[in-house]
């Protein structure tokens, strides 16, 4: 697939790449900070940036609502969260826009960017996305609600109930399952017995499509079409993006206790970030100079964000009594 054939300009393609790379570089930095004892926890986007950013670029980033799950660094960056915001979250500082340091990293939320607050129990965001789409329909707003989850999470009751509800009422929702082959240690084969997660769509009377999650353009195209459908009032779509979780489940996990290094290495060879870089290089959109420039730019950004966040204050102990109810 070519970026021009799915309707993306050269600038947009480069912008997409930058966003993917930023997600990757932030994530890598988080691991460094974790391993050096500076932040207690990381949960990674690595291996899923292509799908996340490809999808986000197909959305209308000034009206649509997103309900990302914990790996969606690419989605939140595309929707306006900054490296600094993410570092403030990593360090759990008072200024963290997601939760003021109340939640762990990966629990996104930022109202001004229509990034809907999320929790840890997986899949609860799916009915929320449906509710937002319902509200949009009632208010006659032209927008969609975009929700993501892991393939393991697609086995929760809330996935089923939410998807069915959305389809019965033809609501503008895009369900995107980021299939990274594992739910912590449990491989896909012990999570589901269907061939594709998108096989579930027909049971809700909606289109289901499986795309290569390492190809941001394929994902862009699928989400783009799903959005058109949604806006026309034709209802929701289920999209499965297939890729691989390149890191352990989180900084608390040891993935080599349940999978082989060879398997991980094989997946790394198909890494969407590098794949897309190659694509852009072949088209001469990404020259060595441009590439160096981007890397430099991102490094400065991340360094600054890290410094800022590291030095920012924690929330006051007494602040825990605030915001239980409206004040």
């Amino acid at each position: 697939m070519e970026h021009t054939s799915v309707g993306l300009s050269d600038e947009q393609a480069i912008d997409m790449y930058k966003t993917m790379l930023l997600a990757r570089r932030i994530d890598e930095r988080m691991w460094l900070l974790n391993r050096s004892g500076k932040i207690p926890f990381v949960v990674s986007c690595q291996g899923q940036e292509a799908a996340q950013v490809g999808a986000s670029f197909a959305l209308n980033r000034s009206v649509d609502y997103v309900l990302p799950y914990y790996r969606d660094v690419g989605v939140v960056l595309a929707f306006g969260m900054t490296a600094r915001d993410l570092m403030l979250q990593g360090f759990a500082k008072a200024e963290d826009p997601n939760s003021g340091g109340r939640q762990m990293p990966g629990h996104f939320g930022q109202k001004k960017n229509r990034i809907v607050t999320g929790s840890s129990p997986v899949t609860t965001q799916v009915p929320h996305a449906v509710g937002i789409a319902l509200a949009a329909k009632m208010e006659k707003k032209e927008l969609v609600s975009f929700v993501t989850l892991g393939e393991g999470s697609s086995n929760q009751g809330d996935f089923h109930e939410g998807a069915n509800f959305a389809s019965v009422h033809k609501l503008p929702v895009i369900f995107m399952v980021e299939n990274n082959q594992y739910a912590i240690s449990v491989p896909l084969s012990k999570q589901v017995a269907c061939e594709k997660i998108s096989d579930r769509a027909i049971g809700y009377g909606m289109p289901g499509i499986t795309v290569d999650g390492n190809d941001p353009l394929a994902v862009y195209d699928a989400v783009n079409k799903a959005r058109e459908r949604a806006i026309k009032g034709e209802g929701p779509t289920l999209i499965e993006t297939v890729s691989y979780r390149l890191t352990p489940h989180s900084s608390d996990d040891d993935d080599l206790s349940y999978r082989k290094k060879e398997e991980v290495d094989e997946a790394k060879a198909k890494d969407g970030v590098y794949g897309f870089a190659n694509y852009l290089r072949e088209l001469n959109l990404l020259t060595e100079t441009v590439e160096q420039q981007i890397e430099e730019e991102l490094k400065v950004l991340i360094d600054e964000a890290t410094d800022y966040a590291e030095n920012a204050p924690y929330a006051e102990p007494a602040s825990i009594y605030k915001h239980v109810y409206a004040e």
Partner: protein
Amino acid sequence: MAVISYIQAITMALREEMERDEKVFVLGEDVGVRGGVFRATDGLYNQFGELRVMDTPLAESAIAGVGIGAAMYGMRPVAEMQFADFIMPAVNQIISEAAKIRYRSNNDWSCPITIRAPYGGGVHGALYHSQSIEAIFANQPGLKIVMPSTPYDVKGLLKAAIRDDDPVLFLEHKRAYRAIKGEVPDEDYTLPIGKADCKREGTDITVITYGLCVHFALQAAEKLAKDGISVHILDLRTVYPLDKEAIVEAAAKTGKVLLITEDNKEGSIIGEVAAIISEHCLFDLDAPIKRLAGPDVPSMPYAPTMEKEFMMNPDKVEKAMRELAEF
């Protein structure tokens, strides 16, 4: 002021709030054309149409979860659980999500949903159409639980719940629906959530209770009055968070306290009430705090012999009151 039934007060509050604010809508099973299995939403479908009085698929987690999503967007959903017993599949959405959205997002997001559910026994409903379920939720800061006893309180508190900026569980005693009637002003009014209400002034013993049991207590108090025993009755109205001041004041007033619930005794709301009293006005007491409650068995059986043994009634209340008065 017209005399209307408890359920008519519900319908009236819903109608008036829907007329007042376009963002208010109702969703649940059979709430549309059928007007609800108890007819609490009778007439609303005709007046407000399908989208604002929405029949949902049979899936409580979605009813709650979609409502939560819509509330986060800015709507004022009123979700109906057909029977309180069937709220169980929605517990995750209510406890993990609704109750924690404001807090976890550091006040960035909020969740102004009202969840209505008919609870309580004495209606030949057997194990799964008779339960009191408030105790399950009465340990979740972020949530409010309202359980009104009279049509006047129903109307004022349901309106307050809908206008409240936080999630409210609104539990209606299904035997009160048609059995309890009372005067209700035609004008718009609300009553404060979080405040208990004195339903009868008295000097010899204090009864603290809520829901249908308020009426049993009032009936029994009439009888005791004939024997010169003066009963003070406090109606909790909001069972979570409790109105501690009112509880302490009412308990201290007579020094003899009877707590009543229709729920199983151990772990019920009145345990917390007893704890508050024993923490704050122990030395004002002239008798042990007495509790009258349902037996500690899973739920109310169907056969009339057994249902009667379980269910609270004015005779049981009267007996307990006399025992306490004589202490």
